[in-house]
């Protein structure tokens, strides 16, 4: 066994003393402070012990305990308590005091720091009749505490208070030869000065270590001030103001003077691809949660989206299925529409890019760019597949990325490094359709002169970054783009299905999808209302939010804004770019071809309600980093959060009113405890508002769950089901508690609406909540109001959620795990075995 110590290290005194006192055989080695003995610790820690078995000990107290136990002494509860106190209470203060005394020379201040702590020890000793801390003999606690306090108590300059008993004990322990020896070895001379070297090497004291991680610890309880509690109580009692009436949404929604006008777009899904869960959470669902929230907040909000329909993929599909491209688009548009309807995505308008308005607006922008000299002509080398007899669109070429060597880089962008590339730059390109190597042919094309627009872009970006809400990844991606230097982008292609280029020499060409697709936002709005320009050419009044996944960022933050800036037509540019990371599926990625993952319409067939999907997807929304969809986790969250937390609370609250109070909300007599929970809930509501205003969708959801958790605790502690059987006072308490709870439930229905609209509506129906309560409570900074007054009659209460059991989940997981093999090209709704859905349906019948 080997013990490593260093001179001047106060922790070493105790181990050496323990060693001497217990007489355990051990090799001793003196090291410098910097030397690292324990390999896995990041900082050198001494003292350390290497045991014969190879185990290392790095805690001085544990080492002392070990030595004493080896010597035959067992540790008692009191010893443990003293050691714990030493490590958690004494040491932090001690280190600070020593720091102040030794390095800053302020001995008196050091003494003051220690007064409280040492007085506890004094008090402890006063309750003891033994010579030493735990017994009549010196035990491990004595050695440890004595050694820790030695530098302080041996120095007469340091006055840490009267401490008769402490000093008496200290003197007795000092007489031990083991102690004197240890001190001589480690702290020769004056203790405090001997410590200097050691203390200087310590990392900066973490005086701010006591911060709680916000909203991450389960019970990071916000400490309510008395004031907060009072205010909350009063606001609550104020109840719903009569005048607040919700405004029915009237189409077309147009910007209004004096209101906050918010325009929300979600990246247009490509029509041919059935969206999977990752696409859904990345774009439309995120935007939907935010939009519903915004409307509740009273903003004047428009949410548009649609399918992106032009491009070769559609062309090819049309050939395959023997239909025209338009027919294909019609067919798939319906599929997308149905999927989003099922997910309750509340678009104000869900359109398409293949409209007359698209042609008009994009050609208009085009001409304006041309006139202002932002377009240049060039001949381009393009890959042409002789076998397929056509120029290959970017998505039909795959090869090795010239920058990062990723072997599956697509013709326009490398999936791995994200850089935009031209298809001809790919190494070893292959035609994705026939697998042959394409040849390079030249063709005349038009380029958007991004470099010329760079200056203006940067100026605008700076302003947008600073005033708007961009997600961190969006900013980062954009900045790296700019850093790499902008190059002219080709905006035309040799294809048929697309917006035609309105120039004679380019009559066989169409616009490149990434040029005119974002213009789709405008044209779709134009299809919604002829006053579309009030939104899109109105940057003063309109705040534009773009929702997308991170791979779309460059187009929305650079290319498209440049087109609009170049057109110089006072276009509304994006103020807030919200980009998500990737959602993985279980341990891998979504893959339609391999049948891995849940794709849009399949969710419906699982029998799991749309709201549950919405809840889970927002719960795991990939914000700062990639996240994963996991069936097991879905079941878990459903059962623990929805069923046991949320559902349980709301149901209980409602049930109490029904059962104990004949369905009428009882009277409230607020006591301190009730005010406290009201204040807590009000605080959570404020957090929720603050977070959702900043599109922190995931974090805000946690607030909702916190409210429900508080609610459950509140009911648990107050036991209204018991009190209702008691005397008058008790029954009144039960009434208050029930009433407060059911109002919290009402608030929850409001907070839940952006996330789970159906459930939210169900709750409101069950509680017969007034229509305007949601918008009343979510307005301004959020007010928790009493929306259900005394005597209010509620409706029939029933459970909101079903349990998902592991069997069902297993069935589902297997189904989507990729055993099906490549799915059929045209069918998206495959016939599924009804087991899982049936199972769930059967559950519901119970």
């Amino acid at each position, binding site marked *: 066994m080997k013990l490593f110590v260093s001179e001047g290290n106060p922790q070493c005194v105790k181990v050496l003393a323990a060693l001497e006192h217990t007489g355990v055989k051990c090799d001793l080695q003196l090291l410098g402070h910097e030397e690292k003995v324990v390999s896995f610790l990041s900082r050198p820690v001494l003292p350390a012990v290497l045991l014969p078995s190879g185990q290392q000990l790095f805690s001085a107290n544990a080492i002392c305990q070990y030595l004493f136990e080896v010597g035959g002494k067992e540790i008692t509860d009191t010893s443990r308590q003293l050691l714990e106190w030493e490590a958690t209470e004494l040491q932090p203060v001690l280190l600070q005091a020593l720091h102040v005394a030794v390095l800053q020379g302020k001995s008196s201040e050091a003494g003051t720091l220690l007064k409280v702590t040492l007085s506890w020890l004094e008090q402890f000793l006063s309750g003891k009749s033994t010579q030493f801390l735990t017994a009549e003999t010196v035990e491990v606690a004595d050695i440890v505490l004595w050694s820790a306090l030695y530098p302080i108590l041996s120095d007469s300059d340091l006055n840490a208070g009267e401490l008769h008993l402490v000093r008496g004990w200290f003197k007795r322990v000092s007489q031990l030869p083991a102690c004197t020896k240890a001190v001589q070895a480690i702290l020769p001379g004056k203790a405090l000065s001997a410590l200097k070297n050691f203390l200087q090497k310590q990392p900066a004291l973490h005086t701010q270590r006591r911060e709680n991680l916000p909203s991450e610890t389960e*019970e990071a309880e916000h400490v309510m001030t008395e004031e907060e509690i009072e205010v909350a109580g009063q606001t609550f009692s104020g109840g719903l103001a009569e005048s607040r009436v919700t405004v029915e949404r009237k189409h077309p929604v147009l910007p209004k003077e004096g209101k906050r006008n918010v325009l929300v777009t979600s990246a247009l899904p490509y029509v041919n691809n059935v969206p999977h869960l990752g696409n859904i959470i990345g774009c439309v669902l995120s935007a939907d949660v935010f939009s519903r929230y915004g409307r509740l907040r009273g903003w004047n909000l428009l949410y548009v989206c649609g399918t992106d329909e032009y491009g070769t993929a559609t062309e090819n599909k049309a050939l395959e299925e023997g239909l025209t491209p338009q027919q294909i688009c019609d067919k798939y548009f319906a599929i997308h529409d149905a999927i989003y309807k099922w997910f309750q995505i509340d678009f104000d308008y869900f359109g398409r890019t293949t409209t007359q308005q698209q042609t008009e607006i994009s050609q208009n922008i085009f001409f304006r760019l041309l006139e202002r000299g932002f377009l240049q002509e060039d001949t381009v080398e393009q890959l042409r597949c002789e076998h397929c007899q056509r120029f290959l669109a970017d998505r039909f070429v795959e090869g090795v990325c010239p920058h990062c060597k990723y072997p599956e880089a697509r013709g326009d962008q490398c999936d791995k490094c994200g850089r935009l590339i031209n298809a001809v730059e790919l190494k070893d390109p292959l035609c994705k359709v026939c697998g042959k190597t394409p040849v390079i042919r030249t063709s005349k094309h038009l380029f958007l002169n991004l470099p010329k627009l760079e200056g203006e872009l940067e100026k605008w970006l700076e302003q947008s970054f600073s005033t708007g809400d961009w997600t961190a990844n969006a900013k980062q991606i954009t900045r790296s783009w700019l850093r790499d230097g902008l190059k002219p982008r080709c905006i035309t292609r040799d294809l048929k299905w697309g917006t035609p280029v309105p120039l004679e020499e380019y009559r066989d060409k169409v616009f490149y999808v990434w040029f005119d697709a974002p213009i789709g936002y405008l044209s779709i709005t134009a299809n919604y209302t002829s006053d579309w320009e009030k939104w899109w050419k109105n940057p003063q009044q309109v705040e534009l939010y773009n929702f997308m996944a991170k791979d779309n960022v460059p187009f929305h933050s650079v290319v498209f804004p440049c087109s609009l800036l170049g057109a110089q037509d006072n276009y509304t540019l994006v103020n807030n770019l919200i980009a998500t990371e990737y959602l993985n599926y279980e341990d891998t990625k979504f893959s339609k071809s391999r049948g891995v993952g849940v794709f849009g319409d399949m969710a419906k067939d699982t029998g799991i309600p749309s709201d549950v999907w919405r809840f889970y997807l927002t719960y795991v929304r990939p914000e700062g980093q990639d996240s994963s969809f996991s069936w097991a986790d879905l079941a878990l969250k459903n059962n623990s959060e929805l069923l046991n937390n949320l559902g349980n609370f709301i149901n209980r609250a409602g049930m109490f009113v029904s059962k104990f109070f004949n369905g009428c909300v009882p009277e409230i007599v607020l006591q301190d405890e009730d005010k406290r929970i009201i204040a807590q809930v009000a605080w959570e509501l404020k957090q929720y508002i603050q977070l959702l205003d900043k599109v922190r969708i995931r974090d805000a959801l946690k607030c909702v769950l916190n409210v429900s958790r508080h609610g459950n605790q509140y009911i648990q502690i107050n036991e209204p089901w018991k009190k209702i059987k008691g005397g008058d006072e008790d029954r009144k308490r039960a009434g208050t508690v029930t009433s407060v709870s059911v109002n919290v439930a009402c608030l929850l229905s409001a907070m839940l609406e952006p996330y789970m609209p159906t459930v939210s509506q169900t709750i409101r129906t069950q509680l017969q909540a007034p229509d305007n309560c949601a918008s009343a409570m979510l307005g301004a900074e959020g007010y928790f109001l009493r929306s259900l007054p005394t005597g209010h009659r509620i409706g029939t209460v029933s459970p909101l959620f079903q349990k998902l059991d592991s069997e069902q989940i297993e069935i589902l997981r297997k189904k989507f795990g990729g055993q099906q093999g490549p799915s059929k090209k045209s069918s998206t709704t495959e016939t599924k075995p009804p087991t899982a859905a049936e199972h769930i349906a059967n559950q519901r019948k119970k």
Partner: protein
Amino acid sequence: MALRELSSLEKFVGLKRQKKISTQGERKVPVLQNNNGSSLIGLVTISSHLVSEAKKTELLGESVEQRAVVQQWLEYRLTRLDNCSQDEVNIILTELNEYLVDKVYLAGNSITLADALMYYGIHHIISELAVQQKEKYLNVTRWFDHIQHYPGVRHHLPPVIVLRNRVYQSNQH
């Protein structure tokens, strides 16, 4: 936090009657009132006491050496893990990851109080880790998943889903 932990611990070691435990001070240190009027203060102290009372002393370590190691990690939990700053979190995870390379449990070859309390203490950190980070601290994740599945440990804490296969190849970090 301490109260719920101790309550879970009571269930874990199979103690039937719930003890009267309160907290004191701004650090919310738990205090256990004994029947004879004396009290025990401190999370580790009380936990150890509960374990002894339930006659599950193997949870404190079966040899002198193992007991010292258990003590060491309990101290680590209180002094390094609790209330640590965000920067400290990564350091702690790295240290634990290194330590757990060749170990299934923190002390010896069987589960001890050290594993249980470290699990309670580190839960909030692990549940917030992203998939990449969980893979970075692979040994910690493996240890964590094992402990949270250990019968009787997990009571008051929601389970954290740990994916078995690595999604990210190690050279990406």
